């Protein structure tokens, strides 16, 4: 059923805005509410480009294909409107913004979303209450919340902060781009725990990772392998275990041989 589809990507091609090199060569992906999808793949296969392109990163140009979120054409929207429509990207490298406090940053983000839906801004006390409640989900220190965005945060604190923001914004679709990179086991558990707490039957997540490890904590329904800008294989959770055991070479060989025979 069409109504049951949250994210639908068809034949998505994207290139670097600077230089025009094509990185995504036609990605197809369908995500339904309540699902967790994992996207794995070797370095340079286009995983981060896919997430950045969906979020509207101006470093990439879409040259073909479509992407809709609950029926809304994402590719026509400015990044901020994609966010309002429910797309959240947890950055692999969260950006430090000296001089902008976390509080002002989150208030601006939340109130922009409310405005988009014709709602009044939150009062100061409502906002602070919300912040406190959401902080607990990822055990984020209050001190971090009073500092500049990500400035001087450790790797683990930055990733917690991403999940905290996700908790505040309550997205329909969260894309977690290598959220596990730079995390120790304890931090990984906290971050993954936060993601799991935020799961509902209506929202969905795409987890981009190199390693099976994260998937022990965030159980995927579907695992995809992205290679050379295409999804070349999809399967259940067992695919991730197989990749962990055998590496990517067998898939690379399969794909490259197919191409050769096609020529």
């Amino acid at each position, binding site marked *: 059923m069409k109504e049951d589809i949250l994210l639908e990507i068809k034949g998505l091609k994207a290139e670097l805005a600077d230089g025009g090199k094509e990185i995504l060569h036609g990605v197809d992906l369908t995500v339904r509410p309540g699902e967790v999808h994992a996207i794995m793949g070797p370095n340079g296969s286009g995983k981060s480009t896919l997430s950045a392109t969906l979020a509207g990163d101006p470093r990439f140009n879409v040259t073909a294909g479509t992407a809709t979120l609950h029926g809304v054409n994402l590719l026509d929207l400015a990044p901020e409107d994609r966010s309002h429509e429910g797309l959240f990207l947890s950055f692999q490298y969260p950006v430090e913004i000296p001089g902008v406090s976390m509080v002002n*940053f989150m208030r601006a983000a939340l109130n922009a979303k409310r405005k988009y839906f014709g709602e009044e801004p939150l009062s100061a006390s409502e906002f602070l209450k919300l912040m406190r409640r959401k902080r607990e989900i990822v055990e984020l220190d209050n001190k971090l919340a009073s500092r500049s965005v990500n400035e001087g945060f450790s790797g683990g604190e930055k990733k917690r902060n991403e999940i905290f923001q996700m908790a505040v914004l309550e997205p329909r679709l969260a894309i977690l781009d290598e959220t596990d990179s730079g995390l120790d086991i304890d931090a990984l558990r906290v971050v993954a725990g936060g993601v799991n707490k935020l799961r509902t039957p209506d929202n969905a997540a795409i987890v981009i990772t190199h390693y099976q490890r994260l998937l022990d904590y965030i159980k995927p329904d579907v695992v995809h392998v992205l290679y050379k800008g295409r999804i070349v294989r999809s399967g259940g959770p067992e695919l991730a275990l197989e990749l962990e055991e055998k590496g990517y070479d067998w898939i690379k060989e399969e794909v490259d041989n197919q191409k050769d025979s096609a020529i």
Partner: protein
Amino acid sequence: MNALDQYIDLYEANAATVSAHSAGALNAARADALELLKRVGRLPHKGEEGYEKTSVDDMFAPDYGVNIGRVDIPVDLAAVFHCGVPTASTWLGAVANDKFVPTESLLRNIPEGVTVMSLAAAAAEMPDVVEKYYGRIASEERGGTPLALNTLLAQDGVFIHVCRGVKAAKPMQIVNLLSSPVPLMAVRRVLVVAEEDSDISILFCDHSRCEIKCLASQVIEIYAGKGAHVNVCDMEESSSGTSRFSQLFAEQHDGSELKINGLTLLNGITRNEYYIVQKGSRAVTTLDGMAIGNGEQHIDNFSELSHSGDHGRSNQLFKYVLDGSSSGAFAGTITVESGARFNEAYQSNRNILASREARMHTKPQLLIFNDDVKCSHGATTGQLDQNALFYMRQRGIPLAEARMMLMQAFMMDIIDNVGIDGLSERLRHLVERRFRGEEMMCADCNAKHGV
């Protein structure tokens, strides 16, 4: 006819009137100033050394009136109280065009040991003190013809004196209000004398209610005696029809600390010159500047900071955010004189160009005639951080809002470093309002001048 001639002619035709409305040291200095102006014969033009991007001649060229006869120009003094900075926590005085206007509260509340009054009155009532400093800190060699022109025509301004050991409990706030129905040049002169071990903070707020073009010519002289602490914040929030030519001269003695913040929030054409000499040892200087430009605004800051004592420290930070077709210039020189040992001097100029059309020119310089120094200087000019912009937009913050937040964040260290209680918080608000393009105090005039 060059821009200077009209003022020389004006003075020569009215010399007696000028002197009659002023006094003592102010009048005594005019002859030398006139001689210099006639000898040199012109104001600096754009492209000359030190004036690479700003023509003083052009700034003074319009046919401005000078209020030689001290005609009472109706000035809405209520506007003084609309100054965006809260006045409750300061002692408030005003300069209407170039005439000092005390407020009742100032007259009543100023504590013993602190004098704040009309400079002309001070020159008459306490000639010894004024003569000792007036025109002595400002040097002809540095200030050139613009200084001489101010000296030639200045009839009044502000005199601030703090006695030895007196620590002023509150900041002094002087609101400079330009207001005139005809094109006017205000010629202001400020003399600040902080005697040994005294402590004073002064906030100057420049506002303009000019419906037509106005020019403020300002010279500030600051004497910081041994161990004195002087904190000056000079904020301009004027209008696009306003030109401002300001020279600040300061002389620091042993162990004195001088902090200066020059803040250009809103303006037309501005040239600020800072000439600071550390004469004594262990002097500390902080010189910060902030400039926000859009439209056709032009902001030029020029500094010469000289270390001639031992163990001196200085820190300069100038930041610009230029949008629209605005232009900025910064030229700063640190000199460590020969024989001045163990000095530390740092200078930094950082700029953001927020549009394709905005332009910034920067020239940081170091002149070191000595070993045993720690000095650095540098300049960066760039655009808003694209990664940060995308990050903010991904979280739902609209582009215009994200840009505004980043521009404001860029100025945060300057704002936080303003050493007057309560002012940082207020400035944050003013800067935000400025970046949002919301109504400033001088909105009436700006509408007319198309900002």
